[in-house]
């Protein structure tokens, strides 16, 4: 039987843990995003011609929302689990009557929530400078939750695998950040040489950013079905892998 009160408590504790350091977990990404919006969207963007029918700030905003949503959900998953392992407080959870699925749901729930809060905060900040349209609301919700889910899973996997803070940051520094920036946050794929476009189309982050951009401003450069299928495969594959590792106690049990 589902330990509902336990699950609620574990999620609320994880939320309390990231709220306790809200300057780092929430304010800091919002300030960075604000600066991106002002500099790239308003100052530089004002000198860039329209991309299709859209102002540069409107074109770049979905990518900024996605960038921050990815970072926040990844960091919550990775740092939360790693810190529990590092402090030994993972034992509090292991001795309690939680199934592995409940543990996983709690960690994922908190990480997805942090990703969504940060992403929504960026969107609200953008309203100061642009109308920040929403062409397809339900698609927006789908992309936001699905991508937050994927990166919460990736973060938890890194939180399980890492043995020190340096390892914890490896994936973000060498994979997530470069691929996000190269995934079309600041530019349309049509601005790139043809050969470079092939590489961009192999980058899954391009589909995340492009999907959210379609949901927000109604313009799309990727194959919608391909992107959708890739997200579903990634999300389910990561969830199964994570559940398997959790249920074996990989790196969380002695």
């Amino acid at each position, binding site marked *: 039987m589902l330990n509902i009160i336990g699950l609620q408590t574990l999620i609320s504790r994880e939320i309390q843990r990231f709220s306790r350091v809200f300057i780092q977990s929430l304010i800091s990404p919002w300030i960075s995003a604000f600066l991106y919006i002002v500099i790239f969207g308003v100052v530089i963007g004002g000198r860039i011609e329209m991309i299709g029918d859209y102002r540069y700030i409107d074109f770049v905003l979905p990518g900024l929302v996605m960038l921050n949503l990815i970072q926040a959900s990844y960091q919550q998953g990775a740092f939360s689990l790693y810190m529990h392992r590092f402090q030994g407080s993972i034992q509090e959870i292991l*001795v309690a*009557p939680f199934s592995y699925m409940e543990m996983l749901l709690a960690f994922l729930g908190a990480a997805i929530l942090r990703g969504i809060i940060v992403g929504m905060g960026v969107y609200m900040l953008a309203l100061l400078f642009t109308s920040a349209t929403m062409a397809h609301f339900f698609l927006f919700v789908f992309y936001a939750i699905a991508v937050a889910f994927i990166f919460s899973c990736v973060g938890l996997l890194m939180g399980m695998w890492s043995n020190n803070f340096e390892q914890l940051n490896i994936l973000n520094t060498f994979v997530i950040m470069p691929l996000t920036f190269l995934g079309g946050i600041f530019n349309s794929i049509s601005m790139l040489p043809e050969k470079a476009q092939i590489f961009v189309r192999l980058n899954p982050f391009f589909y995340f950013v492009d999907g959210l951009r379609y949901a927000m401003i109604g313009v799309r450069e990727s194959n919608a079905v391909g992107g959708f299928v890739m997200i579903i495969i990634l999300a389910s594959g990561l969830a199964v892998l994570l559940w398997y590792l959790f249920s074996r106690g990989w790196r969380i049990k002695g």
Partner: protein
Amino acid sequence: MDALEIQHLSKSYRNNKAVDNISFSIQQGEFFGFLGQNGAGKTTTIHAVTGINTFDSGIIRVCGIDVVKDYKQARTKVGLSGQEFNVDIFQKVEKILWFMAGFYGMTKQARATRIEELLTIFELHEHKHKTFRELSGGLKRRVMIARAMVHDPELLILDEPTAGVDVELRHDMWKYLKKINSEGKTILLTSHYLEEVEYLCSRIAIIHKGKIIAVGDKDEFLKDGKNLEEKYLELTKNI
């Protein structure tokens, strides 16, 4: 029914056999001492019982419930005060207890009542708004035991609960543990203070290099006029 039943438990870390085919049981209401030097396998055994460790082979039952097959139910029966401070050190005392009680499915009302009781018993009222890292060693131990008891478990496991605790508090703790044991609580205690084990426990097991080398009533250990420390050294000396 036994409060704890361990049959043929083995656990290795790579090539090191930490626990080697051990078996023993603890009857309900017993105060059981589990002795052994550092690295003998005490904590590994306790972690296997509580789900912190996996184990390679054997069967563990808590109040008749298999800790692998019915692990969720088994865990409701056990409370653990670990040897290490395995807690979020930035969390406030009251919150540590609050969250732990919630993990065990206690309603908010039940949690509030129970936490109030525990804060009184362990004299933690004035410290309830302090973070764990702000507490002294003795207070930290009290919080750990209070946390282990928050769901009123049938089997309370105390892994070196008085390490780093001053004499006064240790005696207060002994008094309290005696009291709850006399009320029916089963307690498994590990300690390097053998006079503590001698004073509190009615039955004792000694684990040495991963194997149980002696288990029996305390009186059997003390029958030739030696105290527990002398007997312990004698038993472990030549193995």
